[in-house]
């Protein structure tokens, strides 16, 4: 792998993270109102048991980012905190650090999104392949076409409809949450089943709305592949239809889909923010929603930076790994 390609990709990674962090720092300064000190002041004057902590936090914050400090000094302090993954304390759950809160909820999101992304990919690609295959039965087309339309509908609205049908009307599945409140979550079969039944509706709304995207990509690739010479040769040799479909057409058409899958996996952390809000699923998206409602600025900032960091990292890994996987991608073309 050429060294300058690796270096250039790495530079893009650094610039993305730096740009996002700088924007994150500068935006509050431009509005003239410091959302953090405002919120802290509010909490501190409200009193109550966390008041002591708030006053303390206010002092630390003033020391670090006070108006008496020049902007560049505040900027350096901010960057230094960021490099150490120190996102400060949560304002609404005071003694807890932001990074701890994120750590508690991120596994819910990763679990839900990882499984749905892979399922979407498998189901969608198969559907797309069958749609483009001239010998598949006609009724398949009638089943799959609605999915193409569903892909135009925002997934969280689909979630609302599913909650109403399966949660409210039929009462088959729980309507919200990640587990039954008050139960102890362990690795025993009973709680796993509980978690799965809570995850089913959010997963379904994500999958139903995404199948169309994968199917469309696969269908157009299948159409291209079917015109290739090796397909005509294979058919002339008298190979069975199933061999033709699975061993010849599908295997060649799936490569670009795998690339898309890798890209989609990069968005695992941020992909379901709104579906988590709809289902009150205890993942990172719902955390973000609650943080916005409470104006817990440090949590919002922490989540946003973490997601950007995750995406930049996966993009970097992808850029470095894809040319190794697919020889058709060259280092030069990516510049």
């Amino acid at each position, binding site marked *: 792998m050429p060294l300058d390609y690796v270096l250039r990709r790495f530079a893009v990674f650094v*610039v993305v993270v730096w740009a996002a962090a700088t924007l994150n720092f500068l935006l509050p300064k431009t509005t003239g109102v410091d959302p953090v000190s405002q919120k802290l002041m509010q909490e501190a004057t409200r009193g109550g048991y966390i008041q002591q902590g708030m006053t303390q936090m206010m002092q630390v914050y003033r020391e670090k980012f006070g108006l008496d400090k020049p902007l560049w000094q505040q900027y350096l302090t901010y960057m230094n905190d960021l490099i150490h993954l120190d996102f400060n304390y949560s304002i609404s759950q005071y003694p807890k650090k932001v990074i701890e809160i994120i750590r508690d909820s991120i596994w819910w999101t990763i679990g839900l999104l990882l499984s749905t992304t892979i399922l979407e990919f498998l189901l969608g690609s198969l559907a797309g392949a069958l749609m*483009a295959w001239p010998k598949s039965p006609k009724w398949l087309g009638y089943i799959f076409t609605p999915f193409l*339309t569903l892909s135009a*509908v*925002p997934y969280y609205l689909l979630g609302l409809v599913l909650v109403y049908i399966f949660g409210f009307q039929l009462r088959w599945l729980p309507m919200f949450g990640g587990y039954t409140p008050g139960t102890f979550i362990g690795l025993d079969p009973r709680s796993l089943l509980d978690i799965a039944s809570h995850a089913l509706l959010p997963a379904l709304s994500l999958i139903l709305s995404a199948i169309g995207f994968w199917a469309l990509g696969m269908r157009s690739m299948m159409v291209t592949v079917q015109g290739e010479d090796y397909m005509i040769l294979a058919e002339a040799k008298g190979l069975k239809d199933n061999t033709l479909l699975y061993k010849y057409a599908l295997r060649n058409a799936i490569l670009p889909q795998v690339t898309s899958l890798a890209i989609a996996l990069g968005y695992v952390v941020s992909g379901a923010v709104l579906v988590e809000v*709809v289902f009150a699923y205890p993942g990172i998206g719902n955390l973000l929603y609650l943080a916005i409602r409470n104006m817990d600025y440090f949590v919002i900032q922490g989540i*946003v930076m973490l997601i950007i960091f995750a995406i930049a990292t996966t993009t970097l890994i992808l850029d470095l790994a894809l040319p190794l996987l697919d020889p058709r991608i060259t280092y030069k073309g990516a510049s």
Partner: protein
Amino acid sequence: MADVVALSGTATDYAVKKDTWGNVRRYLRRNPSLLVGMFLLFCLLAFWLVGSAVYDTSRAAALSVPDTVHPPSAEYPLGTDRIGRDIMAVMIQGTMLTLRIGLIAGILGVSVGTIVAFLGGYYRGWFDTLLKGIVDVGLTIPGMLILIIIAVNIKDQGLTVDQMGLVVAIYSWLWPARTIRSQVLTMRERTWVEVARLSGVSGPEIIFKEILPNLMPYMLASLVGSVSSAILASIGLETLGLGPMAAPTLGMTIYWVIFYSAMLRGYYWWWMPPIAIIVVLFVGLFMVSMGLDELANPRLRRGV
């Protein structure tokens, strides 16, 4: 003869045809996706037009109706919500407000994107390198997150609907800039552009007379795509509670539905109408953009 040309010609042929209306009709018959999409969008427009003409839309304001959470009745065809608004009035106003946000962001996005794309793609040089860098970095970061940070910071000032459009527009020019730039790059190497350049035609004249007209269908498709993703982004932000809190947009209605758990309480009349309108809106935009894609890239035309 005209028929043969129409069938085999490129998209620009349609623009110069004399019998424009006949050609449009013939084209729409071959492109049902465009037709159905336009019909759906037209229905929404008609809903707003007729609705605001015959219905009292002042009841879309909070606390304007005495009965809260009232199921549909003769007085309130779609019922009322917890904040004291008539859902029917909210829907009539919200449809237009949401479209307005999308149009502001979409038109701004495509205009800025086009200008930047032409300046960079046609003249190249350091500006193009800078532009490409900004677009590449910008598109790597999920737009939603940047919009969240921006919206959080200006939330306290109280957003208006138009400002919401501007917020979304901050991000909506990146994608048009990238795609239109790549089109300009191929256009500037075409023979007719080269001939024009060799005959001493100036840069701006080439851009406006040789390249722009050929990119019109493409830019139209790009506009519909931008409007659609701007509406998607705005509804997403509003659902998170980062929209114009007082305005009766469709996205804010979804926010209040979740805020008051209307789903769990069985207030079906509150959440069904906004979802139905949003679905019609997105399906309409999706079909129009599929149809326009076909118009913009004649090579996509296929029998499948």
